[in-house]
């Protein structure tokens, strides 16, 4: 016993001392470093795997195919956050130390919670925080959040766009209709509330809000309630296990799935496959299409996996919604890098400040997307200081039991209604933190 | 509710027709006896006679269904053990009830707890009031430690001590409270001869030097007859004898209880 104890003690101290020797290693000075606090385990690990797999595959694609941007290769490092805020912060601190001269090109955390937790830090460290389809949405106002970018589109705009879609289905109006909003009871699920409340006023439909406590693997009561309410549609803001549970529960109470329309975090293969038959007919929003028929996705499979540099051992995730979303996120990041180099000098990695400027002056046109072989994969993006969102467009897709089928063109949310909401909340934030809103020139 | 009674001053404790039962099972039935100042009062009887229950009634661990208890003339139906302790009733237990996780010193210090007044805030700040108080009580405790000759084990965790010493520490804890009435539940059970002799010596000294009234439960007849002033005999929860050791010894009922039923 004694021996064991002392050996344990030895081990414990060895561990601690060896930890003291960890010092953030510098990345290659001439690389463009991308920090990826990713998550591949824990309750949401599935979603993380697909997204970051796609992201990394595209970066290696760019490295292999055209040797990076103007010869500047991309370097990246992952750090497992398990979707946990505290771990996210630790990862951020660890990765930012490694980013060398190009101090954190851009950081993608794919977690609203973590993005909130590191928002201020990224601000101080001058690292652009890219929140594509998640995170602090009032960061759309770049004069208050110069370094935060809720790119492509936000929860509020998405909700508004979904309402618009439903209106279109009903010949343009939703008067007297009843819509249930079933949401994950967290920052993620609550963001759209303001938008939907506003929409229900102007479109005068009845909005019924039903929250589901984390993790949401028990929704019996909620769905009974829905069945009692018997709404015309259910707008569904689920995440992780909550999604397939909801579809199952809907089936359990016999609520038609084709009247349920989910957010883009409730619209991936990972969400519907486990629900099996129950998921058939279910719709969801998305800002990127799935499938391998997009040229760039096919090319990635050919080039990257051909070279044996793929991020996945089995390729079945390629072309899934979240994989393609990862690719889309990477495309935007790469294009920003290109833009930054064009302004601040080709052939050398861009700094955080320079990347910030690039993200704030993005203009990814249809032509550009075509050139990249990403036509229709994601919408056009044009950002400015007033608009860190850049698009606000989504498509609606439907699960046919085997794959997601896009059933709409790009739908834009009601900007004139939603963006003022962002402005207001950004102003409050500025007041609370006593920031004086001002646009950065470069 | 309390009421003055007309009994003579030097009766410390008086029990009148105490009855106690657990879910229909009678542990004590209609028992009365008294304890006088400075005496050593022994309670004897076969196993399961209700001796320990008797002590538990006296210091409020059990609450009798019937009967009344007079402590220093104050009548009480029942009280909780903490109150009893504050009124100066200390006790030891049949099977040792020390605080296993703590050192001998700390165990005995807990005995002083009723005397320590400083609140947790001053305790946290430590310097000043709390510290002085700690020291004062530490001195008291050290006196007890010297008296019971356990200096050498001061800092040892009680769990590590042999049975005999644990019994002694438990006595020390009780004495540290400077009780006016001391209840000892088989303090010599499972001891060898020397240990018993020591323990007897301590009990007698406590009783004589400090004049502490003592109620003693003990199996060893020899010991009981030697040291106690008066003896109560219980059997099956009933009182079958009460008086001076010699009278009790010759009481036929008692003899039959001990010999007739061979426990």
């Amino acid at each position, binding site marked *: 016993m004694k021996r064991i104890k002392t050996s344990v003690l030895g081990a414990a101290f060895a561990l601690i001392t060896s930890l003291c020797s960890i010092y953030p290693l510098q990345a290659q000075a001439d690389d463009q470093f991308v920090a990826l606090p990713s998550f591949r*385990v*824990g*309750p949401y*690990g*599935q979603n993380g795997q697909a997204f970051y797999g796609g992201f990394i595959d595209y970066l290696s694609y760019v490295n292999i195919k055209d040797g990076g941007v103007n010869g500047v290769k991309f370097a990246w490092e992952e750090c497992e956050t398990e979707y946990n805020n505290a771990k996210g912060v630790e990862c951020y601190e660890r990765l930012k130390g490694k980013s060398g001269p190009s101090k954190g090109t851009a950081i993608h955390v794919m977690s609203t919670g973590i993005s909130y937790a590191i928002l201020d830090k990224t601000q101080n460290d001058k690292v652009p925080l890219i929140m594509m389809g998640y995170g602090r949405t009032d960061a759309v106002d770049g004069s208050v959040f110069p370094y935060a970018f809720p790119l492509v589109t936000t929860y509020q705009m998405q909700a508004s766009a979904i309402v618009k879609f439903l209106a279109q289905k009903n010949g343009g109006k939703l008067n007297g209709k009843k819509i249930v909003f079933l949401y994950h*009871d967290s920052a993620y699920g609550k963001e759209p509330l303001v938008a939907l409340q506003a929409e229900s006023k102007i479109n005068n439909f009845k909005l019924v*809000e*039903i*929250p*589901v*406590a*984390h*993790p949401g*693997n*028990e929704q*019996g*009561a*909620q769905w*009974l*309630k829905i*069945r*009692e309410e018997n709404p015309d549609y259910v707008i569904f803001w689920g995440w992780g*296990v909550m999604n*397939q*549970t909801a579809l*199952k529960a809907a*089936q*359990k*109470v*016999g609520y038609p799935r084709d009247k349920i329309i989910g957010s883009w975090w409730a619209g991936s293969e*990972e969400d519907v*496959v*486990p*629900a*099996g*038959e*129950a998921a058939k007919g279910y719709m969801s929003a998305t800002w990127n299409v799935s499938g391998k028929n997009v040229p760039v996705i096919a090319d990635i499979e050919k080039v990257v996996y051909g070279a044996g540099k793929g991020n996945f051992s089995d390729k079945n995730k390629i072309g899934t919604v979240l994989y393609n979303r990862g690719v889309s996120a990477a495309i935007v990041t790469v294009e920003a890098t290109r833009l930054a180099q064009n302004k601040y000098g080709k052939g050398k990695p861009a700094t955080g400040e320079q990347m910030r400027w690039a993200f704030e002056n993005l203009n990814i046109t249809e032509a550009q997307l075509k050139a990249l072989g990403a036509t229709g994969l994601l919408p056009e993006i044009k950002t400015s200081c007033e608009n860190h969102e850049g698009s606000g467009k989504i498509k609606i897709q439907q699960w046919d039991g085997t794959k997601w089928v896009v059933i709409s063109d790009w739908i834009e949310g009601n900007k004139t209604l939603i963006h003022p909401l962002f402005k207001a909340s950004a102003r409050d934030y500025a007041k609370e933190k006593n920031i004086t809103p001002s646009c950065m020139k470069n | 509710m309390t009421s003055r009674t007309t009994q003579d001053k030097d009766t410390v404790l008086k029990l009148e027709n105490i009855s106690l039962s*657990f879910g229909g099972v009678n542990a004590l039935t209609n028992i009365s006896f008294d304890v006088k100042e400075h005496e050593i009062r022994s309670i004897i009887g076969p196993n399961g006679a209700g001796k*320990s229950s008797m002590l*538990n009634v006296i210091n409020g*661990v059990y609450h009798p269904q019937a009967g009344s208890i007079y402590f220093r003339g104050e009548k009480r139906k029942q009280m909780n053990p903490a109150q009893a302790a504050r009124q100066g009733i200390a006790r030891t*237990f*049949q099977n040792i*009830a020390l605080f296993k996780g703590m050192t001998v010193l700390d165990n005995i210090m807990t005995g002083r707890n009723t005397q320590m007044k400083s609140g947790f805030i001053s305790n946290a700040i430590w310097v000043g009031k709390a510290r002085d108080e700690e020291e004062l009580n530490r001195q008291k405790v050290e006196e007890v430690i010297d008296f019971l000759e356990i200096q050498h084990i001061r800092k040892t965790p009680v769990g590590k001590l042999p049975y005999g010493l644990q019994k002694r520490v438990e006595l020390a804890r009780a004495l540290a409270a400077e009780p006016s009435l001391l209840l000892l539940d088989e303090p010599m059970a499972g001891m060898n001869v020397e240990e018993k002799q020591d323990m007897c010596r301590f009990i007698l000294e406590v009783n004589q030097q400090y004049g502490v009234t003592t109620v003693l439960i003990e199996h060893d007849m020899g010991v009981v007859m030697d040291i106690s002033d008066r003896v109560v005999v219980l059997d099956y929860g009933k009182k079958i004898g009460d008086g001076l050791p010699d009278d009790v010894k010759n009481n036929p009922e008692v003899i039959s209880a001990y010999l007739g039923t061979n426990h």
Partner: protein
Amino acid sequence: MQFFIEIVISGILSGLMYSLVALGFVLIFKASGVLNFAQGAMVYSAALAVVGFIDYGLPMWLAVIAAFIFMVIVGICTEKFVLGKLVNQPPITLFMATIGLSFFLDGLSPILFGNEVRPIDLGIVDEPIQSVMELTGIGISKLDLFSSGIIILLVILLALLFQYTKVGRALRAVADDHQAALSLGIPLENIWAIVWAIAGFVALVAGLLWGSRNGVQFALSLTALKALPVLILGGFTSVPGAIVGGIIIGVSEKLAEIYIPPVLQDAFGGNFGGIEGWFPYIFALVFLLVRPEGLFGEKHIDRV
């Protein structure tokens, strides 16, 4: 009214699902006085094992058997390497050990069986029974009904086991009094190993039913949290307690989830849904204060 009935029914059905998990706790607690927090993790592991073995190419029935064997091994190892080493430790220590165990299992099983979310198909579509639906307008889930049937069957099975088999008698003896059992020459280690195996089996059944309900994913190990209030209510040592407690919890939480939030909303404004998370605990807690020994647990007196 009809809606109310519907809520109660669905409450009863999902309550029985909680009972199933609670049952595992009770078995182990009865026999070895350990509150096995890892029961939830065992449910998760069992379900994962089933789908895992299916992925390895086994047919369903074989996968189930294989999973059962896996659970038995887990149980025996737990007894040998964890609890066996902790005899005569205070119950709280054992409890914390099982928390450790639950972490261990949560880590181990995904490595062995993969952590992709997968469905379990018992061949029953989880939808309301049409005939009843048309007749009364009340929706009763086929799967839930089926599950309840299984659970009741399981309980009867266990009851028989306890009543009429040698092992069962030994188990009861152990549950009543370890020392006495020892003196009767019943080898505790084996008994405990058996109990853990049975608990593993219960976990397996739970895993299958819950898995077919929500798909097999990490959240299955959170079913333990649903079972704990049931235990408080029913008492740690009573099988009927687990069943009744489960039903009470199931119904009360559903009713609460439906009827309390509107009241709060009128009082404070805002949205107060999602009280299922804590309601069972507060409910059980209040119940405890009134009746500390639970529904069927027996009172005990502190001896000095």
